[in-house]
């Protein structure tokens, strides 16, 4: 669907050159949700803008459905852009136009007759579940609603590709989930290819099939999301996943599927270095099975958690838990 070959982009100032993209090679498949993650300044925003040539590449080729779009003239470029929807971090809706007029905008550019436009806008509004906002103005909408309208507008021309430039970065976690859900269902329903850039690993984890990691204008790793979490190849990848990993392991552990009592120990500072758990095992007649654990170093102290399954007599388990609490370990029965 999209094939990027040896793509480079440099910004020229009066006296220095900034290489924003260095020899990028990437293949994105049809119907895929492809994520590009990186810290700010990594070049991901420049890269996604090259896909519809909001940024002009300095070198290299971008093939979309087999055609090198870097060779397109102005007219073909405009046609291409109508085939690629795009949403943005700050939504970029027209503040002086109603929701209806915003979504109708790309259709009016096409010169469609009024009744067809109205029908299409209604369908789209229904799809993003904001039918009642048809005559509202963007300033009357919440962030999540604005992004839904922006998605409807981006889908108006039935594009084959949807680009999302930090589309959820300005939203709270709950709204982010619902927008990601909408993007996923858009892919599932219309078979559209989605390319998104983000600095949030949660976004990658939640909806992406594959991911590219960018650093200093280069793609340093391309992986399926599953493989990335299991075996990250680069340090940057590891750092990105470690930010969300602890949440994930806890999601995976289902306390009811264990025979024993599952407890979560939280420790910080000095007690992280003490062999509290091994002493507990020696002192009480119980078996402890380690399910997951994690320690993060913060400046001078360590914080972390350990999830254990305790097997044995109830009263022994209760005593063991009390022992842990007495040793300043936070215990939570899951």
């Amino acid at each position, binding site marked *: 669907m999209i094939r990027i070959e040896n793509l480079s982009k440099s910004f020229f100032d009066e006296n220095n050159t900034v290489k924003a993209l260095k020899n990028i090679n990437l293949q994105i498949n049809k119907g895929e949700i492809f994520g590009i993650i990186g810290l700010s300044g990594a070049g991901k925003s420049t890269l996604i803008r090259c896909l*519809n040539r*909001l940024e002009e590449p300095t070198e290299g080729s971008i093939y979309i459905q087999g055609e090198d779009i870097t060779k397109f003239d102005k007219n073909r470029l*405009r*046609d*291409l*852009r*109508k085939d*690629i929807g*795009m949403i*943005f971090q*700050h939504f*970029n*809706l*027209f*503040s*002086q*136009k109603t929701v209806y007029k915003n979504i109708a*905008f*790309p259709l*009016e*550019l096409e010169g469609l007759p009024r009744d067809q436009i109205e029908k299409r806008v209604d369908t789209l509004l229904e799809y993003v579940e904001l039918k009642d906002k048809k005559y509202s*103005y*963007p*300033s009357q909408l919440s962030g999540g609603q604005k992004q839904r309208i*922006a998605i409807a*507008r981006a889908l108006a021309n039935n594009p084959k590709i949807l*680009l999302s430039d930090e589309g959820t970065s300005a939203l709270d976690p709950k709204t982010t989930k619902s927008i990601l859900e909408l993007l996923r269902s858009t892919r599932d329903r219309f078979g559209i290819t989605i390319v998104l850039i983000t600095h949030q690993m949660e976004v990658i984890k939640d909806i992406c099939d594959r991911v590219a990691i960018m650093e200093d204008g280069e793609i340093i790793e391309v992986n399926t999301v599953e493989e990335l979490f299991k075996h990250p190849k680069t340090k940057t990848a590891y750092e990105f996943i470690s930010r969300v990993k602890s949440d994930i392991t806890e999601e995976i552990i289902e306390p009811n599927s264990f025979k024993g009592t599952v407890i979560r120990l939280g420790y910080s500072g000095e007690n992280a270095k003490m062999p509290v758990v091994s002493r507990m095992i020696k002192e009480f007649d119980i078996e402890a099975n380690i399910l997951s654990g994690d320690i993060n170093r913060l400046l001078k102290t360590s914080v972390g958690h350990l999830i254990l399954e305790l097997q044995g007599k109830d009263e022994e388990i209760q005593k063991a838990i009390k022992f842990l609490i007495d040793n300043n370990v936070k215990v939570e029965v899951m």
Partner: protein
Amino acid sequence: MAELIIPALLETIYMVFFSTVFSLVLGFPLGVLLVITEKNGIWEKKQLNRILNGIINVLRSFPFIILMILLFPLSRLIVGKTIGTTAAIVPLAIAAAPFVARVIESSLKEIDKGVIESSLAMGCTVSQIIFKVLIPESLPSLILGITTTIINLIGYSAMAGAIGGGGLGDVAIRYGLYRFQTDVMVIAVAVIIVLVQGIQFIGNILSNNINRK
């Protein structure tokens, strides 16, 4: 008194109305050009932008009275005479045009770059962006800018009165200043104040009423 003030008021309104219209005709496209040709504009033309900026700055540096005198020959060419309210419209419109260009420029620049970027991403042409995005999105601000222009032109038209342009400024100077009829001057100035207040009031209301931001 009334027979002095009312015709003068009508002359002022006549001068201001037409000079506003013509200064917009000249200045509006200039303002749009300034915005689209600047660095990273949607029709980047650095050289043209530099030239336009130069011309506008030079024209705006001229004291209005001097510009008016310099433009007398042009008035003769266009309206056939150099004295009178109609003749004054030519220098008024030309003097206000660079001001209008700057007012329009600053209004259009208020639009979020992201909105323009998303229009480009939807496949807009340059003219579609100008007419369907830039102008409609900045309309409330444009109305305030045009209001400022009208008020400026009321001030200019009073000066034009001093060199034979007629209107309220002319009455205030001829009767009030030269003939020591202070009451005429006070009333002429009071009428100008009411005019300015009224126009600003209407401009504010219009701008607020159409603004959806």
